[in-house]
C-alpha cells in the first residue's frame, strides 16, 4: 500500500533534484528543465494531498486537483516567456551558458 508519506517523499526528492539542477548546471536549457521539475514536484504533492485528505463521505478534497490544473497552465506560460528570453539573449550573445552571461555584476 502506497501511503501519503511515500508520495511526499518522492515529491520532495523531485523538488531537491530540480533545485540541485538549477544550482549546479551551467546550460540555460537544462536549468530551465530543472525549474519545470520543481513545479511538477509541487503538482505531485498537491494531487497526493487531494487524494488522501478525504472528507467524511470518503471523497477527495478537490481543491488540490483544481490547483494542479492551474499550475500546468501557468507552467506552460512560463515556458513560453522563458524560452523567448533565452532566444533574445542568444541573438545578442550567441551563447546559452551561464558563465558567459556576466556583463552585469556587483
Amino acid at each position: 500500500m502506497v501511503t501519503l508519506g511515500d508520495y511526499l517523499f518522492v515529491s520532495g526528492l523531485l523538488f531537491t533534484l530540480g533545485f540541485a539542477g538549477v544550482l549546479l548546471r551551467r546550460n540555460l536549457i537544462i536549468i530551465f528543465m530543472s525549474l519545470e521539475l520543481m513545479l511538477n514536484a509541487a503538482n505531485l504533492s498537491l494531487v497526493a494531498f487531494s487524494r488522501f485528505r478525504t472528507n467524511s463521505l470518503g471523497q477527495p478534497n478537490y481543491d488540490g486537483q483544481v490547483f494542479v490544473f492551474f499550475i500546468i497552465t501557468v507552467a506552460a506560460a512560463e515556458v513560453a516567456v522563458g524560452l523567448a528570453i533565452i532566444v533574445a539573449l542568444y541573438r545578442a550573445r550567441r551563447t546559452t551558458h551561464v558563465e558567459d552571461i556576466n556583463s552585469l555584476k556587483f
Partner: protein
Amino acid sequence: MSYLELLRLAAPEAIVVLTAFVVLTIGLVTGRREAGDTPAATAGLGALVAALGLAIAAATIVRLPGHATLFHGMLVVSPLNSLFQVIVLVLAFFTVILARGERLLPNKGEYLAMILLATVGLMLLIGSEELLMIFIGLELTGLSLYVMTAFDKASQTSAEAGLKYFLFGSMASAFTLFGLSLIYGFTGTTSLAAIGPRLAEQALPPLLFVGIVMTLIGFLFKIAAAPFHLWAPDAYQGAPVSTAGFIASGSKVASFIVLGKILLIGFGPVSGSADWHGLIAGWTPILAVLSALSILIGNLVALVQKNVRRLLAYSAVAHGGYTLLGLIAGGRAGFSATLFYTTIYAVTLVGAFGVVGFVRRENGGDDLADFAGLRARSPLLAGCMAIFLLSLAGLPPLAGFFGKFYLFSTALRAGANHGLLWLVALALFGSLISLYYYLIVLKVIFLDENAQATPAVARYDFEMRADYLPKMTLLVLAGAVLLLGIIPGTLVARILASFG
C-alpha cells in the same frame, strides 16, 4: 451567486484586461516596423488609451460596494483592498506616462500591454485572500515583468537582466508553490481566513513549518530582501527605465500587502516573537534576521556603487528591510505603518527613475558621471531628484521622514519593554549610512561640472527635447512627496480607516 454579480465585482480587472487588448491591437494595426522606433502617433494613441483605461478602472473601484467576498475569498472587495488597488493603478498610470518618453523601444503597443497585464496581476494579488488566486496573481505579475525587463532589444544588458530576473523569480515561485502545497495538505484548505484557525488548533508539524518558510521565500524575493535580492541590482540596471520604476514601486506595494495579509491573517497563530530577551520560534524571528541582513547589506553595498540605478537597487534592498519592521511589530498598527511606508517609497522611486530616464536619454548612460552638472542643464530635474533622494534618506519635512518615524516608533512600541529596540537601532544606523550615498549623488548633480557641453546650449537642448508631459508628472510626484511629508495624516487616516 450569479455571473452578473461576478462581472460587477471583477469589473476593474476586466476593464484593465480589455484595455490591454485594445492597446495591443492598436500597436499591431498601425505600423509595426522591423527596426527602429514605433511611429509617434501610434505610441501616443496607445499611451492615451492605456491611461484612459487605468483611470476608468480606478473610477470603477471607487463605485464598488464596501464589502463583498466571492468564492471563499478568491475575490475580496474591502476598503483596504480597494484603496491599494487604486494606488497600484495610479502607479501604473505614472509608469505609462514615463514610458512615453522611452523613444528607443520598438513595438510600444506590446510594451504598454505588458504594463497593463502586470497591473492586472497586482490587482489580483491585492484583491484575493485565497492561495490559488494569490499564486496566479504572483505569476501573472512576474511573467509580465520578466518580459518587460528583457524588452529593450537594442540594449546588450536588457536580455541578460531579464534572464536573471526570470531564473531567480521562477525559482522563488517554485519554492512558494511547494510551500503552498504543504500548507494546503496540512490544513486542508486554500482560504487564508480558514488557515489561521486550523494552525491555531493543532501542534505544528515540522513539514508544515517548512511549508510556511518556503512560502515566505517567494514573497521575500519579490520585495528583494537579502539574501533573496541578487536579481534586483541587475534587473534595475538592465531593464528599460520605466520597467525598473514599476518593479520598484507597484510590484513592491502589492507584495507587501499580500505578504502582510498572509502573515497576519493566515499565519497569525504561529508568529512567534523576535524580542531580544524573549525569542519565540515562529516566522517573526526569521523576518527579523532577514530585515537586519537587508538593512546591512543594502546600505553597505550601495556605498560603493558607481551606477545610479544600481545604487537605487541596493537602497531598495535596505528599504525593504525597514518596511519589514512593521510586519515584525505585527498587529493593525504595524501593518498600517508598513503600508504607509511602502506607498511613500513607491511614489518616490517612480519619480527618481523618471529623472534617471531623462538623464539616460540625454547622455546615453546612467552612471554617476552622467549626472554631473545636471543642475546647470536642467534645474527642474535636479530639484525633483533632490526632493526624491532626500525623502529616501528620511530628512524632514519630506514624506520619507514621517514614514520612517511612524514605522520605527510603531516597532519600538510593539514588544513588551522595547524588545525590538535592537532592530530599530540597526535601522537608524542604516539610515545614517544611506544619507551619505544619497548626498554623494546630490553632490555630483549640484556641484560637479559637466566636462563636455557648454551649459547654455546644453540646457536649451535638454529643455526642448524633454517631453512636456513626463516632466509635469515628475513635478506632480515631487509635489506629492512634499505634501505627504507636511500632511501625512490624510493617508495614514485613510489606511487606518480602511481596516474598519
